[in-house]
């Protein structure tokens, strides 16, 4: 009812009430007077009024109307206006609208009340705005810190993994990812994504007891009041790699006695260092102990030879010992030095640097210190050097400036080429002849830059690199050059996946998820866990055909992980599978996988164990999951792994959410949800679309009261489609 109508009704009611009251009052008064009258008087009054009753009623009605008219403003003033004010105030109280309460036309105290309400509401709004602003500021700050941290982590050359107390990974950097790839049993298949990933357990890599022991010793140190307690352990992984881990605690707050919330692991793969150190130890031991015996023999023989009583035959026998031992020692030394030349390591810390980067930096540096044109000749772009770049750049620019100052050289070029296990960096010039002695004397003089003298000479710099340096003439080209032999970085690329080229990565935001700090490991069945909290492996397979029972096989598996409601694209799994049978033409048109693409790929019995490890501790999600699961199950005997994970099907869940839609094909659902479809009909492409669709389904299911995994499975089973069986 509208306000106006209500008022009219109220006014009418008020008038009726007033009329009824007046009538009652008149009746009461009349009856009272009537009772005091004598019979004659009553007859006289009846006679007097009898004919004028209509007039009396008219007067009474007029009186009533006047009373009603007088009552209405009063009613408005004392009932209607406060009621309106109350309603307005209630709106203000229960919603966020900003509006002024008005009590226009109300009595002065009521208007005062409205003003007070308005004032309170304004204060409330200001307070809200203030808070919102502060929250926004704080979350901006947190966001900034997070991305700073993520950026920092991704640039670190050390592997870092942060875990909560349950050992779940909250954060890791790209370096760690590459390191775990090297640890993987199936590096080519799962790429280490089965070992490291957000929400995954670190205990798949490290022994739980080992980590617990390290945590315990940290806690003990904390109790003793250590400021920065950390623990270290070395462990051998399944693949035989030696890992050194340094563990530092993460506390819930900065308070001294704050409980532990998790830990940071900094990992070094020390397999290579360890092997190198042991090799060096062996060399050293071989040298000392081997030589001791020989020297003992030599010394004894020589001392016997001093004996004047020794006859000629005996003397010859002892001389033979001496000769023999001397030869043996020479041979030993030669062997050792041949084995160790490649391994002579300078103690100076050298950094890995792309050769081409070094050359570019050197040219800039040379141009900056002397007036000379610069350029490059052959530069091998694939060479990675191990250098002290600062000192090396100093040496190169120093040499260039002496060439310019003393021999008026106007142009120098740099050349970088591989040379039997090392790199040769040449500083080349052409111009007047100079003596070898002159230029080589520069090698040992302290380097000077204007008035500044460096404590180092070029020779010192070369020694730091365990390298060599010389001067050479190229008479054919009328050129001369200085050549530096420099060490190469440890087998870049192939053997060591941790080279910097691989570390360069454009995106980095998916490596962390601090929300997992809050997730605590509840051990009760997954069925009771909310859908939004679970980790999922969303996957899809491409197959030779649609009948697994009739010999059709998987030819591709693609999968992505969903953790804490986030799609982790960087932790994807994608693998072609050799089905060891022909590919029907009909299928090729759909998935585009040609026979030559799968030939020589790993077979299903190798791929499934890797996929199984990848899907560990997660719920499997697929579109029309029954189909894919059937293929996995039929391969169980061959692969030796059983996929007994909980399974959710987006097709069924879509039918639960939208029972009246005709189509529950993946494209149709994706379109309904506005999910962009790219790379459809590659296993990974479909898996990602399925994952995005699944993410949209979760809140819709929640709106229907389906929150947990168990509820979702039950609802899915009840849909019509659940009756469809492959």
């Amino acid at each position, binding site marked *: 009812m509208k306000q106006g109508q209500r008022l009219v009704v109220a006014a009418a009611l008020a008038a009726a009430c007033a009329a009824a009251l007046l009538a009652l009052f008149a009746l009461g008064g009349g009856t009272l007077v009537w009772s005091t009258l004598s019979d004659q008087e009553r007859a006289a009054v009846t006679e007097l009024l009898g004919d004028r009753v209509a007039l009396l009623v008219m007067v009474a009605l007029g009186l009533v109307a006047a009373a009603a008219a007088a009552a209405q403003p009063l009613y408005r003033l004392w009932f209607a206006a406060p009621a309106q004010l109350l309603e307005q105030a209630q709106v203000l109280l229960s919603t966020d609208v900003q509006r002024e309460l008005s009590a226009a036309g109300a009595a002065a105290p009521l208007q005062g009340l409205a003003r007070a309400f308005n004032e309170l509401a304004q204060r409330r709004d200001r307070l809200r705005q203030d808070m919102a602003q502060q929250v926004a500021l704080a979350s901006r700050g947190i966001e900034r810190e997070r991305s700073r941290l993520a950026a920092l982590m991704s640039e670190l050359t050390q592997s870092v993994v942060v875990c909560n107390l349950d050992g779940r990974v909250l954060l890791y950097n790209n370096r760690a990812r590459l390191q775990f790839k090297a640890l993987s049993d199936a590096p080519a298949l799962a790429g280490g994504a089965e070992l490291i990933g957000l929400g995954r357990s670190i205990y798949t890599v490290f022994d739980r007891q080992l980590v617990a022991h390290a945590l315990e010793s940290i806690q003990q140190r904390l109790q003793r009041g250590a400021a920065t307690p950390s623990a270290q352990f070395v462990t051998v992984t399944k693949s035989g790699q030696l890992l050194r881990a340094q563990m530092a605690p993460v506390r819930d707050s900065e308070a001294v006695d704050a409980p532990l919330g998790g830990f940071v692991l900094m990992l070094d793969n020390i397999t290579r260092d360890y092997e190198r150190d042991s090799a060096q130890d062996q060399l050293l031991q071989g040298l000392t102990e*081997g030589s*001791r015996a020989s020297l003992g023999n030599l*010394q*004894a*023989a020589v*001392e016997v030879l001093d004996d004047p009583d020794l006859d000629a035959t005996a003397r010859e026998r002892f001389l033979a*010992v001496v000769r023999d031992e001397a030869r043996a020692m020479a041979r030993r030394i030669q062997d050792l030095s041949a084995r160790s030349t490649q391994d002579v390591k300078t103690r100076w810390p050298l950094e890995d640097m792309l050769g081409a980067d070094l050359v570019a930096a050197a040219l800039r540096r040379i141009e900056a210190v002397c007036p000379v044109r610069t350029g490059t000749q052959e530069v091998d772009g694939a060479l990675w050097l191990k250098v002290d770049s600062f000192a090396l750049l100093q040496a190169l620019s120093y040499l260039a400036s002496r060439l310019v100052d003393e021999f008026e050289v106007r142009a120098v070029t740099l050349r970088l080429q591989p040379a039997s296990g090392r790199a040769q960096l040449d500083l080349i010039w052409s111009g007047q002849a100079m003596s070898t002695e002159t230029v080589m004397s520069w090698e040992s003089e302290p380097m000077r830059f204007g008035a500044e003298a460096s404590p180092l000479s070029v020779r010192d710099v070369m020694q730091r690199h365990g390298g060599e340096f010389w001067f050479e003439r190229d008479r054919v080209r009328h050129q001369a050059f200085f050549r530096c032999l420099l060490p190469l970085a440890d087998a870049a690329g192939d053997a060591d996946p941790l080279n910097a080229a691989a570390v360069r990565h454009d995106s980095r935001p998916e490596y962390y998820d601090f929300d997992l700090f809050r997730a605590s490991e509840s051990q009760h069945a997954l069925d009771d866990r909310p859908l939004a909290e679970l980790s999922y492996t969303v996957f899809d397979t491409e197959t030779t055909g649609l009948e697994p029972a009739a010999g059709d096989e998987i030819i591709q598996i693609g999968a992505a992980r969903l953790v804490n409601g986030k799609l982790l694209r960087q932790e994807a799994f994608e693998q072609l599978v050799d089905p060891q049978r022909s590919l029907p033409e009909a299928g090729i048109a759909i998935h585009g996988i040609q026979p030559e693409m799968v030939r020589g790929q790993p077979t299903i019995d190798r791929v499934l164990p890797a996929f199984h490890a990848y899907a560990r501790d997660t719920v499997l999600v697929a579109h029309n999951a029954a189909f894919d699961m059937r293929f996995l199950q039929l391969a169980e005997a061959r692969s030796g792994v059983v996929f007994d994970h909980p399974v959710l099907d987006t097709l069924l869940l879509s039918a639960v959410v939208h029972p009246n839609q005709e189509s529950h094909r993946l494209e149709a659902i994706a379109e309904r949800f506005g999910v962009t479809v790219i790379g459809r009909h590659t296993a990974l492409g479909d898996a990602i679309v399925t994952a995005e669709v699944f993410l949209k389904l979760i809140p819709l299911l929640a709106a229907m009261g389906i929150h947990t995994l168990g509820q979702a499975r039950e609802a899915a089973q009840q849909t019509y489609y659940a009756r469809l069986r492959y």
Partner: protein
Amino acid sequence: MTSCILIADDEPNILISLEYLMKREGYEVHVARDGQEALDVMQRVRPQLVLLDVMMPGKTGFEVCQALRGDEALKGTLVLMLTAKGRDTDVARGLGVGADAYMTKPFSTQELTRKVRELLAAPPRP
């Protein structure tokens, strides 16, 4: 009475010098080229002292020493261990398994003969 000495070493180049030196000192000298042979010869000739190399094929010097200390007939034999292992842990092990003295290669022959003389002159092992 001339003392009887056994030299056990697998390296002919040291054996020849040791044999010459000990003979020059006037001892009766026997040689063995590995650990087992050393024990066999000792059973036969019962030497007063054995110059025992640590690194021998078959039984090492440590093992020979332990074996003879456990043998009623041989346990009084004096043992001078010779080794190319120079670490103090090896010395400790040698003395631990019952060697009377320990010399690290290379050593001076004078030192060696003096040591042998001293050992033989000392009161016999209990």
